């Protein structure tokens, strides 16, 4: 426990004083402010004060000027933040010869990765909390509507999920830093995974769906095609996060399935276009959340198995 705390404190200090943290913070802050600024302008024009959930719409609204909403930015940038804080955690210490000194001190070896992981998670958390607070403040000033208590709770869950999502990518970075000897290789490998899931997964999901159930003329085959596509894309943690966060931040989003989506969006729908209650929204994203946590745990388990029994030589 003492070892873990000591490593944690030192790593936290390193993270916060590093240039990479400052750069990442400014990048995410810039993206956040820009997207909310544009969204606020849009919302002021179209939404009157009476419509519900005007405030959290700030996070999901995009426009032609900036086709990314705050949510999209977070979805794409948080992986970069996680990877940047983790990709050289172990191999850099190996190459500099500090790891063999560190593991010859009287601490359990897992204290090293746990301490580094925890410090990274805290860094991501502090970053996200401050950026979301800043952006929320800006939003309040711009649209003149304060978040309701339900909106505040939804933002809180958004924050928690984003931290877990960041932890997943941090874990990925740390895993590659254990598996690969060179820092450049582990950075590239982590970025490659991110690019794959962020940009290519949807195409691959489409290919899988077209292969398994080509969309024909019938409504039925088209629905089946789209359903397979959605299921396949859920392999990607990015898609999982996006889907869950849309449900959480747009209370009117009632379902993730395709059939009901068509029905609810159509005017002929037999359902009332009421927003979901908070509890129902949370129920819908629960499996997504669990899977992201599970994926993080799996990454960590692999890191453990590799690192705990590894022989550490001075390079």
């Amino acid at each position, binding site marked *: 426990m*003492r*070892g873990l705390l*000591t*490593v944690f*404190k*030192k790593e936290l200090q390193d993270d916060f004083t590093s240039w990479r943290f400052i750069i990442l913070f400014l990048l995410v802050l810039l993206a956040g402010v820009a997207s909310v600024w544009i969204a606020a302008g849009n919302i002021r024009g179209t939404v009157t004060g009476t419509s519900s959930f005007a405030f959290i719409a700030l996070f999901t609204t995009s426009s032609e000027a900036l086709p990314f909403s705050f949510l999209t930015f977070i979805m794409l940038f948080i992986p970069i933040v996680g990877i940047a804080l983790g990709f050289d955690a172990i191999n850099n210490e190996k190459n*500099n*010869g*500090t790891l*063999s*000194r*560190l*593991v*010859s*001190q*009287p*601490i*359990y070896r897992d204290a090293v990765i746990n301490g580094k992981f925890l410090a990274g998670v805290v860094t991501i958390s502090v970053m996200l909390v401050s950026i979301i607070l800043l952006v929320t403040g800006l939003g309040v000033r711009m649209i003149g509507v304060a978040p309701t208590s339900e909106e505040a709770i939804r933002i809180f869950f958004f924050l928690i999920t984003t931290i877990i999502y960041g932890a997943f990518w941090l874990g990925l970075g740390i895993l590659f830093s254990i598996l690969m000897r060179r820092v450049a290789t582990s950075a590239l490998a982590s970025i490659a995974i991110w690019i794959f899931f962020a940009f290519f997964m949807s195409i691959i999901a489409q290919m899988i769906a077209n292969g398994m159930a080509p969309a024909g003329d019938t409504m039925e085959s088209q629905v089946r095609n789209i359903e397979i596509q959605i299921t396949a894309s859920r392999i990607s943690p990015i898609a999982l996060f996006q889907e869950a966060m849309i449900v959480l931040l747009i209370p009117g989003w009632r379902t993730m399935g395709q059939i009901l989506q068509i029905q609810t969006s159509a005017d002929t729908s037999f359902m009332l276009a009421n927003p979901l209650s908070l509890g129902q929204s949370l129920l819908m994203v629960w499996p997504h959340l669990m899977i992201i946590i599970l994926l993080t745990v799996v990454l960590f388990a692999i890191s453990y198995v590799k690192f705990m*029994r590894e*022989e*550490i*030589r*001075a*390079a």
Partner: protein
Amino acid sequence: MAVVETVDLTKVYNGNVAVDKLNLQIEEGEVFGFLGPNGAGKTTTILMLLGLTEPTSGTARVGGFNCTREPLKVKRIAGYVPEKVGFYDYLTAAYNLDYVAALNGIAKDAASKRIKEALEVVGLGKVANKPVETFSKGMKQRLAIAELLVKTPKVVFLDEPTSGIDPEGVVQVLDLIKKIAREHNMTIVLSSHQLNQVQRVCRRVGIMLKGKMVVQGMIDQLGKQTLGGGRFMVSVKLTEVTPGIVDAVKKIKGVVNVERSGDSLLISCNEDLRPKIAKAIVDSDGLLVNMEIQSFALEDIYMKYFREG
């Protein structure tokens, strides 16, 4: 009781035997020279002794603790300076030591006092608050010794502590090693292939070749055994060395070679000729400051085994 003890310690990497049934005993308070060419298995043995890698078979004990089963207890009493010792470059020397002190659970107040003293002892007091990236290799090595002074382990493993340092740095590091061994009664295991350096600090050595300990014992005894009498090295310190003295020493029967460095002479001879050397020096009006016998040249012993191996 032996502080470091191995019984049939063996390590096999992908079918290659790195350490082969090693039996080693190192007594408390001794400075043990662990010799052998590169790839002989010295580092692997040290890693197993520290519990940083698991032996394939056999056991290793440090301070009575099993290195595989109780690595934490071993690490509490053992210090390690790896071959390419590294520090966090962007942090100051004092902070680096602070981190080690915290990892060892040394209380904050006691730690800062110890760190200050340790940095003074190794001559880094003035640069305590400079980042380590500004340090030379020799300074980093001395910082590693300061780390040992902060941790104050019972046993210290030094892996090639002098590789890549300039001659002056080597002298400083070796003197420090001697000093900490004496003042803190630390048991020191020094791995090296720099034989003359080992001879400066160690009395007992073990020579490893291809994973096996081919010989171990006191340097002078080894010399007698292996070289059948062998050579003696006598080092003499004078107030001033004149050519006359050198000639006089060279004329003594049994002297093989005389090397001069500054105001000292290093004399190799076939037997213990100290009285005759002293007489020769005094007779040629030299003023003798110090004379000591360095017994056998370790290099001769080493080369013999090396050739046989």
